[in-house]
Structures are given as structure tokens and as C-alpha cells.
């Protein structure tokens, strides 16, 4: 335990920075998923699944804030939430444009964006997990081991949705 504390003091700044960065990017990812959900209300599976898995990122934000305290960070455990009003406006817009095929091109672009974001978050987790192992910080390692698989699932989902819809969107426009 002592060793861990020493290492935390020695390398705390860099690790703290990484945690802080991940805390921010998980918040962004949750936001992107909720945004996608609102944009694609007429695509019901995307609407619901994006919300379900945004909750994973929100939970990751909480876990990171908690473990961040070990590194003297004061991160907000409450995930950021989009203004509900804005969300409703977007949902209504999605309902109105749902009868036209072109907006589905936007879906592909959104999924591509989401995949890249999740890939970034995934790499950040990779870095944090490696660091935690080197520093023998089991708490941090547990957080990374619990959270990272869900990031990978978010990524695979974005990839799978692109695979599922690309042909219909591109060819039968």
C-alpha cells in the first residue's frame, strides 16, 4: 500500500491528468450517445439502445470521480446532462423528417463520429489500465477492468449499426 502511495505521489500528476481526461471524454461520449438518441428518435432501436449504453458512460464518470480522489482530483461524480428542453426540440425535428430518406445519411455520419469517440475512450482506458498495473494500483485497475469492456461494446455497437444500415442508405437512396 505504501508503495502505491509513493508511486501516486511521484506520478500522480500525469495519472491524475489521464483520469481527468477520461472523465471528460466519458462525459462527452455519454453526451454524444444521448444526442444521437434524440436525433434518431424515428429509428427506435438506436433511440433506446443509445440511451441504455449512455448510462454506462455516465456510470464510468461516477467511478472515475471516485477513484480520482486518490489522486487529489475533485471531479464531479454527476454526469453532465443535456438540457431536456433542447432534447425535446430535437426529437420533434426527428419526427418531422422521419419520412425522408436523406436524413439517414446523417445517421451514418453520427455513427462514424460515435465510433471514433468510443475508440478514443477505449485507448484512454488502455493507457489507464497499463498505468494502474505498473503502479500496482488495484483500485484503479478494477475500475479500468470494469469499465473498459463496456466501452468496447459501445464501439462494436456503432460499428454494427453502420454495417447494418450502410447498404440500404447508400444504395437505395
Amino acid at each position, binding site marked *: 500500500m505504501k508503495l502505491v502511495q509513493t508511486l501516486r505521489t511521484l506520478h500522480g500528476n500525469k495519472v491524475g491528468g489521464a483520469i481527468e481526461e477520461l472523465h471528460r471524454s466519458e462525459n462527452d461520449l455519454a453526451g454524444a450517445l444521448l444526442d444521437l438518441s434524440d436525433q434518431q428518435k*424515428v*429509428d*427506435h*432501436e438506436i433511440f*433506446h*439502445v443509445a*440511451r*441504455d*449504453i449512455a*448510462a454506462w458512460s455516465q456510470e464510468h464518470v461516477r467511478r472515475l470521480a471516485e477513484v480520482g480522489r486518490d489522486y487529489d482530483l475533485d471531479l464531479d461524480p454527476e454526469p453532465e446532462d443535456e438540457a431536456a428542453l433542447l432534447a425535446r426540440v430535437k426529437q420533434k425535428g426527428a419526427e418531422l423528417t*422521419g*419520412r*425522408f*430518406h436523406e436524413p*439517414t445519411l446523417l445517421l451514418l455520419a453520427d455513427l462514424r463520429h460515435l465510433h471514433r469517440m468510443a475508440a478514443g475512450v477505449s485507448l484512454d482506458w488502455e493507457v489507464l489500465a497499463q498505468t494502474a498495473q505498473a503502479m500496482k494500483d488495484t483500485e484503479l485497475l478494477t475500475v479500468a477492468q470494469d469499465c473498459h469492456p463496456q466501452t468496447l*461494446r*459501445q464501439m*462494436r*455497437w456503432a*460499428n*454494427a*449499426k453502420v*454495417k*447494418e444500415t450502410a*447498404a*440500404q*442508405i447508400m*444504395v*437505395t*437512396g
Partner: protein
Amino acid sequence: MTQQIDRIAEPWGTRTPYGPGEAWPARVDTHLAEGVAADDVDRWVQSASILHSNGDAMDIAVKDGRIVGVRGRAVDRVNHGRLGPKDLYGWQANGSTDRLTRPLIRRDGRLVETDWDTAMDAVAGRTKELLEERGPSAIGFYTTGQLFLEEYYTLGLIAHGGIGTNHVDGNTRLCTATAAAALKESFASDGQPGSYTDIDHADVICLYGHNMAETQTVLWTRILDRLAGPNPPAIVCVDPRETPVADHATVHLAPRPGTNVMLMNAILRELLEHDRVDHQYIEAHAVGFAELEKMLEDYTVERAAEVCGVPAADLREAARLIGSAERLMSTVLQGFYQSHQATAAAVQVNNVHIVRGMLGKPGCGILQMNGQPTAQNTRECGADGDLPAFRNWSNDAHIEDLARVWNIDSMQIPHYTAPTHLMQMMRYVEDGSIRFLHVSGTNPAVSLPELRRIRSILSQDRLFLVVQDLFLTETAQLADVVLPAATWGEKTGTFTNADRTVHLSEKAVDPPGEARPDLDILVDYAHRLGLTDKDGAPLVKWTSPEEAFEAWKECSRGRPCDYTGITYDKLRGGSGIQWPCNDEHPDGTERLYVDGQFWSDPDYCESYGRDLVTGAPVEPTEYKALNPHGRAVIKAAEYLPPHEQPSEDHPFQLITGRTLYHFHTRTKTGRAPQLQAAAPEVWVEASAADAEEEGWEEGDLLDITTPRGAVTARLRISGVRPGVLFLPFHYGYWDTGAGHEPDGQGRAANELTLTDWDPASKQPIFKTAAAAATRIAASGGRSASAPTTTGSRPVSASVPPTRGDETALVSEQSSTAGGTR
């Protein structure tokens, strides 16, 4: 001994008790038209039930070229002579005067009669136009779970192999998609592990969201006969209603809708906690146990009791029964399949059997049930979002092999993603990228969720809608072309029930007017499209059902559902036969996975599985990394709260469901007088506690609303869980003045349901919506017209009992000797 029984009042008939390991005694049920005696019948023609998934074998009585009744086949392994009410009375619908007898085509906004040539030219012509203008992805096919194997195989070939569209699905998506998905997740391939004969041996039978007493009445009769005999099995029932199954249960768990995964995880955790685990079996035959152990850590009985709203002691007792069973049998149906986290919940039932090592032995069956008579064939033949003979769309070698069977280029078969599921197809119709939809034997304008949306999608001008059916259904009323089809008893073909039993159904009489068998229509369509194989020969090389069956056999060769050992002749005269049936198993196969060997080898399996939360397909490399060669896959799942929760405005949870006397949208059962009279009108169920709180009484007229729509129904105060409303989904509009949509008051339950589906099985969710209810009129002394014999049984004794008239009398002939096994 022969007796006459009113089978409306007594749906399961007379008991013939038997003990564990004994043969189920035969009892032959016969119902004939008024004034016809068995001796008057000209011919008895072999068939099986088309009004549910049980596969009850029967002979159709023919007199003067007309169907005059039915009689159960004592020789058959499935029913040992028994028939349920839907079959005993439902045959009368064939002779309805409002059958479609000529094709219809839309002219100046109205459907008018036309000839076959004009109708088929319009259908094929529009297909060809769209193929040229927009390509194959503008064409979609939505079929059913009620055609025959030969027809599905032909449809799959035309759509996937000929037209080259990925958009093919069946209404099995609404009823049995989760059964298939759960089997694919756990065993890497579809295929029912168990057999109905497991009922003869089991000491504990669990029914998960499966009101078997109403959906498969004859199978339930088998359980009732075990319960009436020596050493009866214990029954565990999971259902938010007090169904007839719950009445006979040792433990009845009535969870809050949408919490099945929580419930199953808590039961599994108890099993692990008390080490009711077959470690040897898991070691030798499964992967994924460590992940399950880790997942279950947080799923305590106490937490589940809170989330599910079920007493902790009952959960423990259920787990104790399951954990101490020596021969454990489980069945699963819509309470899991049509609810939140459908596949994840159904998979946990498989997990119970895997961790207990209860597979492949007498009494140790899993039945991931089907709802429809031929749903298994929709799945097998590639007409429902799967490829024929359980081929894996993400395995290129399987596509090559299918192309070989069909003699086409493998690039012709779309396999860049899973075949499009129905709800996604409806989305593509909505956004205008699908412009031709062929609907056969199903009625989406009543059976799909959120009907206002569905009606608006199906009535778009830019959509060319073809409906192939027996009657002018709600959906047919919206069509551009309506093709009159022949049905059961009017055409020949085979179909397979929920325990893999294949039956032959022979033509007994001619179809009415110009109506044609679906197979003939499909073959005609293929020829008009000029579909050919790579040598320029016709793509569809058959015209008769038996030729189609022989072609299918070749397609199934070496696959899990191997039919190569079955012929029409072999199916004639005796009992149905369970697949796989081939050189190795010439008499069929009673139970799968007897040796603990599963079809999970990556090169052989039907599916690599999906993420149970996101639905993302597992990539081949990920699957191989699991190292599942020949082993079952234990797949753990986290609980997620339902997507629509009760609120101040919508305080109730709404579930929809079925009643014993009707099938689907009553297209047939609503035209059988005894069945229609037993359940003539929609009703809504609420608990006595809620009724008291709201000041409602039996028979009051309620308005049920959700953000999607409204339904008006009379109240039945029943044994449903407090806080939950139940609506039967059978009642549409074809027999109302409005025709295909509500005229003022809605009565189709799907006016209310939400558009949401399980991401893994893509099965729509009909059992978690938040709803409001208000009284709009007092009963005035009338009670709801819901059956009193079933799950809708009233809590008050003052409601008149459900009875049949003299035409409902059925002859039951019991023998002391058992039938075949």
C-alpha cells in the same frame, strides 16, 4: 369409453392420469358438424393443427367435398388423439362465406375483382420496375408462421437467391424470434433441445411467462394428466396473471413486468450459492461459467424481491425446487419473449439447465416455445431473417454452400449483414427505401405495435402493397393487390412443431373459387419475374409440394435440421417424426445434445451470437476466442430497467396477451361460432386492489390510454398483478363498421403499445408500456365478456360462466392403454 363434453366449458377435457415414466394414455377427440355422424364421413384426410404451435395431429373429415369436422390421431407422439378447442371448432372458418375467391386490384382508390393474370402481372411488373429503378433493396417480403415448409423454402429462394433482397422476415418475429435467438446464444444454433415426452418424466416443470394452458392446450392436458397421477411433478409458474398454470403451481411468482432478467439472475445466484451446480458437466460441456459467477454477485434475492415486487421467500422456494430437481423441465414463451430484455431473460433459462447439467436426458428438456404452427419452418427455411437450414450469414463458406445448392453465384445472396428484421423493414418502408412489400398470411395492421404509425406506413401511396390471404383482413383493405390463398385442408405440405416433430398435411378439399395454394402463387411469381440459376434454367425447379420438399431435403443435408431421412410416404399413416432424421437417425431424434456435444463449432454453427444489450453481432474472431468447439455458451446478462416506466400521468403497466379461444387477429377463430361466442369482445383486466382504489366495478367501461392511442373496453376484475392492466390483442376492426381502423373508440390493444424491440432477437416488446385508465361509463349490470375458464377468470362469483351450446359437444373416447410415445 366415449362421452360428450362441452369443450368450451372444459377446454382440457377429461383426465387420463398417468405416473412418471409411464405412457400417456390415448384419448381421441372428435368434433363433427351438426347432423353428421362418424359413419357419414366420406374420407378422413391426414393433417395437423394450424392454429397454434403444438402440432396436434388430426384427420380432417370430408363429406360431399366439404370439410365437416376433425378427429385427433391416437397414433401420433404429440397429442395421442387429443385436440384443443381451437382445432375442434376452428375448421369451420375454411367454409366461411366471406373467403376471398378472386384476386383484387386497386383501381381509382378502390379494390375491385380481377383475374389472376392481371393481378400477377401487376405484382411482377412492379417488382421488375423497382428492380431496375432502385435495386433489390427496394423489395421486401413479410410472411407468417402459418404457411407450409415448402412455401417458405420457395419464398426464401425467390427473395434471397432470385431477387437478391435482404428484406425477408416472418411474423414469427413477433412470436418466436426470441426462442431462436436464445437457442443461438446458448447452443450456437437453433434447434429445440427437449421433447414433449419430457413431461412424462420430469419431477419439476417450470413455465416462464408461458400460459401453456391457453396457448398449447393439449400439452397442458399432458401436464394435467401427470398432476392427476401418482408422484406428480412440482410446477413453478412465472406470470403476472393468475393463469390456469398458476392455479396448479407449487410456487407462483408474479413479477413486475419488465424485470425477468433480475428474477432469473436471482434464481441463478441462489443455485450457485447453494452449489446446486453440476461442475463436471460445466467443465466438460460449457464455456462462460466464470463470467456468470461474476455477473451474479450483485443479484441477491433481496434486491430481486424489491425490483420484481415478489416475496423473497417465494424466490428462494422456487430456486430450492429448481435446485433439488432430478429431472428439470423448462418452457418459455411470450411473458419472456415479448417483454423487456427478451433474449437475455430466455438465455438465463438455458443457463439454469446448463449449470445444472440438465440437458439431453429424459425429463430434462428445455422448450423455448413457438407460438405459431409453422414458425419452426419459417426459421428453418430462411423466410424469417435467417438463411435456409440454419446457415450462418456471417460465414462465407455457408453462403458458398447455399449458392451451390441453389446453383447461383454466391454474390447473388445478400449476406453483408443479417437479413433485415421486420421492424427495420417497416422503418425502411416508412423512409421510402422499400417500395414493394409482399405480405402473406399475416395481418400487421392489427398485430404490430403502435397501430396508428403502422397504418400510416402501410397506406403510403409510394408503397406497392401485395397481400396474400384468405380473407379481406385489415391489412388487405390497404393493399394494391390482394391474392386469394388456399389454406390448411385445401393444399398439401409439411410443417414442424415446437418439439421438432414434422407432420404432413394433405389436401382434403378444393379451395373456394379461384383461390390458390401459396406455393402455386410463389412459383407463378418467380416465373413471371424470369428468375434463373447461373445456367439459365428456372431458379425454382419445382411446381408440386413434394418436389419442393425433396429440394429442401437436399438443402438441409448435414445441417442440424437434417430432413434427408423423411419422405411424404414415411409421414403418411403413422406418427409425426422429429428432426434430425437421416441415415444416422432414420426414425428421427427425440432429444438433442444427449452426449453433451453442441453444434457450436465455429465452422458449423448457425450464429456467433449477439451482445444481449446492444444487439451487435459477435464477430467471428471474438467467437472463436471463446473456444466453444462443441460446447454450450453460458451467457451472463445485466439487468436494465424497462424503457417505459409508469408515471403520474400513466400510472399502470400495460401488458397484452392472448386467450385460449382465439388465435392472432381472429381471422379464423372469429369465424368459428363457438370460439367467437366464448370470447366475443375485447376486455381489460385489472386487479381487485386497483379496482377498489379507483372505485371501478366488473363490467365498467374504461378508456385505456398511452401516448400512442386509446382503447375502450369493459373491465374484468381478475387475478392480474396489482398495478398491471391486461388487454387481449386479438380484436381488430374487420368485423366492425369501420373496416380497418377505429371509428371513434379503439379496440385493438396495439393502438397502445410502444415501438421498441429486443436488440438481440429484434422481437417487439408488447408487455411493458405505461398506461392510464379512466372509467367512462358504469357497467349497468353487464359484466365483461371475457372467458371465466382461463386467465381472465373473474374474482367475483357473480359473472355467468363461459359455456358452449349444444354444437360445442365433443366426443372423447378414452382407452386405458397408452398411445405411442
